[in-house]
């Protein structure tokens, strides 16, 4: 009984932390708990959240991806540019989305190969990627903004379906799919094995490099998903600022959710709620009108506390 409770707490503590934060915010500002605001939080979280899901795969397999922020800008810019070129309408929009995914997969593949075959630490390849992607985006726009002229492309990012914002729906569905892949398929199992004990994985005749490379592709695909949603919503991408800092937020979401920087550990469940905790904190800062210069302090303390609380069970 006691053990069960403890296990339960261990697994769901992060949810309790989230709920605690929300109750606290609700008491401070009742407006926080308005259904509309809750939806907003989900919505606002979805962009980083989807990326964090991708990064969770990479991190469990023992890697890291610092390039996601710049990649978000690059893929968003690419989606906008191609959909502008292809023109209005569902067909062209779908085509541009597919092309964006293809590019994302290719970039992920490249990162993966550099890291596995090139034996370059992921920190370096993806830091390089971060610089290179940003440079490309800036270069083609001369530091300006990519604007969408396709009505179709720039419409779905704001859509509500069954009363829920589309990005939120995508986020939840994406999380469920990712959960299944990571938890219920062979590939997912191998991701854990590769990250936890590479030698053991080799002895089990698992293709370590292939698995690792695929995680980078998944990260790329996740970034593409987020990029498409975000650039459609904003109908634009700023070559200088869009996506900057996303890498830290996404990694933080995963780590708050229990993913380890040294690989082998982590869950989609954890990342999902880790991202939501970040989202709630950001929203709360605005809702409680926390003074500009103190926001960092509050955010830092809450993140540390959130992880500390999760440790208490142990």
């Amino acid at each position, binding site marked *: 009984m006691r053990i069960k409770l403890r296990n339960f707490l261990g697994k769901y503590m992060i949810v309790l932390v989230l709920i605690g934060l929300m109750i606290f915010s609700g008491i401070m500002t009742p407006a926080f708990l308005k259904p509309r605001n809750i939806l907003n939080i989900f919505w606002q979280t979805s962009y980083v959240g989807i990326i964090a899901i991708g990064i969770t795969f990479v991190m469990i397999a023992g890697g890291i991806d610092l390039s996601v922020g710049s990649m978000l800008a690059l893929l968003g810019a690419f989606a906008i540019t191609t959909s502008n070129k292809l023109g209005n309408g569902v067909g062209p929009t779908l085509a541009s989305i597919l092309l964006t995914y293809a590019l994302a997969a290719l970039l992920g593949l490249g990162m993966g190969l550099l890291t596995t075959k090139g034996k370059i630490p992921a920190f370096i390849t993806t830091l390089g990627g971060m610089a290179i992607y940003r440079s490309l985006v800036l270069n083609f726009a001369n530091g300006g903004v990519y604007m969408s002229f396709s009505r179709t492309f720039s419409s779905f990012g704001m859509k509500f379906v069954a009363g829920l914002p589309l990005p939120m729906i995508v986020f939840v569905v994406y999380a469920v799919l990712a959960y299944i892949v990571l938890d*219920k398929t062979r590939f997912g*199992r191998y991701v*854990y094995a590769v990250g*936890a*004990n590479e030698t*053991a994985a*080799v*002895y089990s*005749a698992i293709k370590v490099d292939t698995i690792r490379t695929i995680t980078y592709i998944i990260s790329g695909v996740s970034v593409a998903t987020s990029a498409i949603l975000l650039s459609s919503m904003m109908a634009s991408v700023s070559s200088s600022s869009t996506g900057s800092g996303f890498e830290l937020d996404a990694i933080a979401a995963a780590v708050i959710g229990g993913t380890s920087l040294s690989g*082998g550990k982590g869950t989609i469940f954890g990342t999902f709620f880790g991202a939501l905790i970040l989202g709630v904190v950001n929203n709360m800062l605005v809702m409680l009108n926390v003074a500009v210069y103190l926001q960092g302090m509050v955010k830092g303390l809450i993140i540390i506390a959130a992880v500390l609380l999760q440790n208490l069970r142990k």
Partner: protein
Amino acid sequence: MKAILSARNVCMNFSNVRVLHNVDVDFEPAKIYGVVGENGAGKSTLMRILSGFLQPVEGEIHFEGNKVVLNPLRAKALGIILIPQELNLVESLRVYENIFLGDEMTRGFLLSKRKMIEETKHLMAQLDLSIDPTVYVSQLSPAQKQMVEIIKAISKRVKVLIMDEPTSSLTDEEVLKLFQIVRNMKQKGITVIFISHRLKEVRQIAEELIVLRDGRKVYQGEIQGLSEKQIAELMVGRKLDEMFPEKPVPGTEIVLRVRDLSTADGIVKEVSFELHRGEILGFYGLVGSGRTELMEALVGIRKVKSGEVHLFGKKVQIEDPQDAKNLGLVYLPEDRKNAGIIQILEAFKNTTMMSLEKFSKLLVRVRKEVDTFKSYEKKFDIKVRSPWQTVGTLSGGNQQKVVISKLVETGAKIFLFDEPTRGVDVNARHQIYQIMHQMISELGCSFVVVSSDLPEVIGLCNRVLVMRNGRIVAEAKGEDLNEKELIYHATGVKEVGAYQA
């Protein structure tokens, strides 16, 4: 009969040093092979080549008469399965997940968890094991992990099963179970290659013997009629002394007194015992009997709930291994890979890791460290290319010797040795025993030896305490110190176990 698997003229180098020289060897179907050789002779290297984990620099591998170029996947497809010497399980995955790692059962895209758990239970039952398939491997003892490795291997479609020292952490009970499986496999036409430093086991199970020495095959043939001593001499290429030196005579002074010790996790229950100066006190018991936990509790790695410990007549409170070390008590862990060595550090740095204060005032004197290492290299016959070789690239037995040297170098007075000679060859084992005696006679040291190797426990120790379910259930000494008695107390059942041979 035609060979199923052969090595032809196989050579292997590491960093331009040749460790296998033109090895030619044939394995026939349905036959059990014993492979022996000194530590560093190249056994594991040869086996890794035969199972596709290493590529030879020269020579060929033939399978069923055809030349093959192996990699892990290809070897697995052919049915060549290796149980590596160092345990290689994913600690953060569950038992059944490890067993099916790389060969998961699925329904469509999805893993079929229930089927795999069922199948695991089934396999466990065959071996008479009671490990819960859903527990995490990190919670198992080394012996249990070893059994999981074995189950993992035999769960596959196997034609050639290579077992690199599978018994080094097993007690007789498990060894017997394992041998039963091996014989069953032979019945099914499977070739089994068995590596061990426990020559008694090799004699018992193998039908044909292969001896490697310094990377060369020096013998392949009949094992019938070879005594352990003769096998050992084949391994080292010269005459050997008696294995166990005369037992030392312990003093009367009690150096370690443990009273009613229980651990917080409830594994060790109210244990009391005394260790005399100059004594070698053995601990025997089955896997999971709590011997390791007791030792860990004594050096402060495991939380103690109640009980007292007296060292050299004084009551002590030991919070961590550092306290223990300062009091002259050190522990050699049984889990070599995780707790014993620091793989990526150089050999000599491992040796001095626990006694760096001896080697440094302000700065560490590397010259002195290296010299010290070299003295152990000689004493224990450690096979290294240089003191700077990283310990992870030593052969298993040589790694073990490095760990022992680390403990000895602390200059402690009381040593808790948990499976000290795991994977160590006969010759070096002999040397280690000699050194223990020397430390007793010259320095007045005392030893607790936890071992699953019955001959060792019997040949080496003055007294042996038997543990079962976390309690000390018997003490054996003098006349009573024999296999039958120990096994009886360890299992609580009469007439089970003992070696037939």
